């Protein structure tokens, strides 16, 4: 992956100016024949120019805002000093030629061929005008005048061509072509990482939304850490005014008005509050990205040598990333579609087989219950059996619904399912089993819903079989990134606890908890045993 240049163009120009100015001062001081005019004035001017160049270098070295602010005034001062020195120095020690190249090169780098041509035209015009006004004299030697004018014209033409051919600060820079096809890991994270590598950034944020979708994907990369989450529904995608450099703590925002002009704006009034809340750092480069079917923006932070060059590169990076993201969207859609199809197929199979069987069984049990023969204990047993079948069917329906939609389940629904399951387990084991949830709102994914069902069944079975429990309480609570599930029973508890040894977690529970990436702890005291499980829960809408 290509990264940016060693130094941004602002530093190169400022550093070049400082070196040239210093060399100019030394050359004039060392050569007894120089300056040919205004002796004291030339030294004072050159000393001031060196001081100015040093100040500019220090100001712009790590500050893209000052670089943009000082670009035009510094350029005008360069031209003025050059014209003065052109007149004040003669002979081979006069560094006018290098200086002229520097001025035009700086214009070509910063702006383009028009500004280079204007600068060259202005210098040559002033030089010719001065030569014509002064006429042949000891100050203006005709031969020297013609040679210098010729040099100026030739170099001007070359550097205008240089500017016109779209010189770019980072010709190597860009996201390289990669073989088309699915990439390893999350394709959106991979796209963001590719962009970060191109600008040499340590942090990146990508906000992305299908143009007709409701969900906004938030992708974050910080060093080796990466995540992709869905921003809550109903949130709008912040709008950016365009490619920009920003620094929030100093309320600065810099954009290109066109190829030769900057727009200096306030970050607070230009950037939406929703944009700022996702940022990790105060400074960065923000680039809107759009494809035919999706839109969003990328923010690069902790960029090495962040400079105005990044704004010149931004349109190309936006195009490259759009292509990458479009491919990522395509492959994600294909993957999502095949997963959704598989889910729907499993759901349909379950619906067509087990659910219909249970439903039919329920109708038959109801018919039997209503028959004249179903009296007394037989009638009661049939009624209980029918309730059990209905409960199992409801549990299965909830699971099928989750499979079909792939959507998370609300804590309310999970609590209702759990209460229904506890009622079933109460009948099955002839115990008092109940469920309660301490959180009022929240969501859990389908996977967690299934885990809760199996864990509760298994924990209750353990409590009754091994502990002889008569009462079991299931408590759930949604924490920030976890669902806490505590199953407490009044059984005899673990022998290990009574003997002061460490309690080994039940293998049947521990295996499932480990698979889900959760933790399991057991507390056992006289008359009360608690299995405390924490399951990781992804962010859900």
């Amino acid at each position: 992956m290509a990264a940016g240049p060693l130094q941004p163009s602002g530093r190169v120009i400022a550093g070049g100016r400082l070196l040239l100015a210093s060399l100019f001062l030394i050359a004039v001081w060392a050569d007894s024949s120089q300056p040919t005019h205004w002796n004291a004035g030339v030294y004072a001017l050159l000393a001031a120019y060196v001081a100015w160049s040093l100040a500019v270098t220090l100001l712009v070295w790590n500050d893209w805002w000052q670089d943009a602010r000082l670009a035009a005034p510094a350029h005008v001062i360069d031209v003025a000093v050059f014209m003065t020195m052109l007149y004040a120095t003669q002979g081979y020690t006069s560094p006018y030629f290098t200086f002229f190249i520097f001025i035009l090169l700086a214009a070509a780098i910063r702006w383009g061929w028009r500004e280079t041509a204007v600068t060259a035209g202005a210098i040559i015009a002033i030089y010719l005008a001065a030569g014509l006004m002064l006429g042949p004299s000891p100050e203006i030697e005709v031969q020297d005048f013609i040679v210098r004018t010729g040099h100026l014209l030739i170099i001007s033409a070359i550097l205008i061509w240089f500017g016109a051919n779209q010189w770019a600060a980072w010709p190597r820079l860009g996201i390289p072509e990669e073989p088309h096809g699915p990439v390893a890991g999350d394709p959106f994270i991979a796209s963001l990482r590719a962009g970060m590598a191109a600008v040499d950034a340590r942090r990146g944020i990508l906000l992305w939304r299908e143009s007709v979708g409701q969900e906004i994907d938030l992708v974050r990369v910080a060093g080796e850490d990466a995540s992709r989450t869905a921003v809550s529904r109903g949130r709008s995608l912040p709008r950016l005014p365009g490619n920009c450099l920003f620094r929030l703590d100093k309320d600065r925002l810099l954009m290109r008005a066109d190829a030769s002009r900057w727009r200096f704006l306030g970050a607070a009034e230009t950037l939406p509050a929703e944009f700022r809340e996702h940022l990790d750092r105060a400074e960065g480069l923000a680039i809107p990205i759009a494809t035919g079917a999706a839109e969003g923006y990328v923010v690069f932070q902790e960029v090495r040598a962040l400079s105005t060059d990044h704004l010149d590169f931004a349109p190309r990076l936006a195009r490259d990333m759009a292509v990458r993201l479009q491919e990522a969207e395509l492959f994600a859609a294909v993957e999502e579609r095949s997963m959704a199809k598989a889910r729907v197929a499993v759901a349909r199979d379950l619906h067509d087989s087990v659910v219909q069987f249970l439903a039919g069984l329920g109708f038959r049990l109801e018919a039997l219950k209503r028959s004249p023969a179903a009296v007394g204990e037989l009638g009661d047993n049939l009624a209980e059996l029918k309730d059990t079948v209905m409960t199992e069917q409801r549990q299965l329906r909830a699971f099928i619904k989750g499979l079909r939609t792939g959507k998370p389940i609300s804590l309310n629904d999970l609590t209702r399912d759990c209460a229904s399951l506890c009622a079933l387990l109460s009948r099955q084991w002839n115990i008092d089993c109940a469920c309660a949830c301490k959180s009022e709102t929240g969501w859990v994914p389908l996977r967690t819903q299934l885990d809760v069902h199996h864990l509760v069944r298994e924990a209750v079975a353990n409590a009754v079989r091994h502990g002889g429990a008569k009462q079991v309480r299931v408590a759930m609570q949604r924490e920030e990134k976890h669902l806490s599930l505590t199953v407490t029973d009044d059984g005899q508890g673990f022998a290990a606890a009574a003997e002061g040894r460490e309690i080994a977690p039940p293998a049947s529970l521990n295996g499932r908890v480990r698979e889900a990436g959760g933790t399991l702890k057991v507390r056992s005291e006289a008359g009360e045993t608690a299995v405390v499980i924490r399951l990781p829960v992804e962010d859900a809408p």
Partner: protein
Amino acid sequence: MTTRILLVDDHPMIRSAVAMLLEGSDFSVAGSAGSAGSAIAAIGDIDPDMVVLDLAMPGGSGLDVLRRLREQGDRRPVIILTAGIDDYPLTEAVSLGVNGIVMKNNDPAWLLDCLKAVQAGKRWFDPDVEARSNELANLRSPLTQRERKLVMLVARGLRNRDIAAELGITEGTVKVYLHAIFEKLGVANRTELAVRAAEVGLGPE
């Protein structure tokens, strides 16, 4: 005199179990059908007093049968007996004047309650379905003809540009339609819409 019922369900287990439940009641199974197509023919042949319809069946949904009956001006009572009903089919079934909805996963005795209520000229919905129906009545309206067409085109895998060309509208208008459809059907994106289109009777033509 018993009320004659046509039982439409593609699962033989359900057909025989319901027939068993109705034995000795005021209702009798006059005939049964295992698909939407055969249901239409059976209604013509048997002329039942009531139709008990499953929703998800091969070759068309129970909603298609209900729609067809109502389009023909047939107002005979129809009861939906299903294992699950989504918001959109529920909204459309209500708008088509369905007389009863019974969930297979609730108390089987409710089927008899429903049949009796409908026989008496009342509407009877499973309590959960009734509550959801009331919520939806305040939230959503059924899909328009054009929206239905657009869903079918999405299910065929067409892109927005192709859909726009097919319907003679702009891509921007397609996006506006899609937003409205997502909202009405409660889906998050076009992939989910495409996958679930067939389930709600809006699969590719």
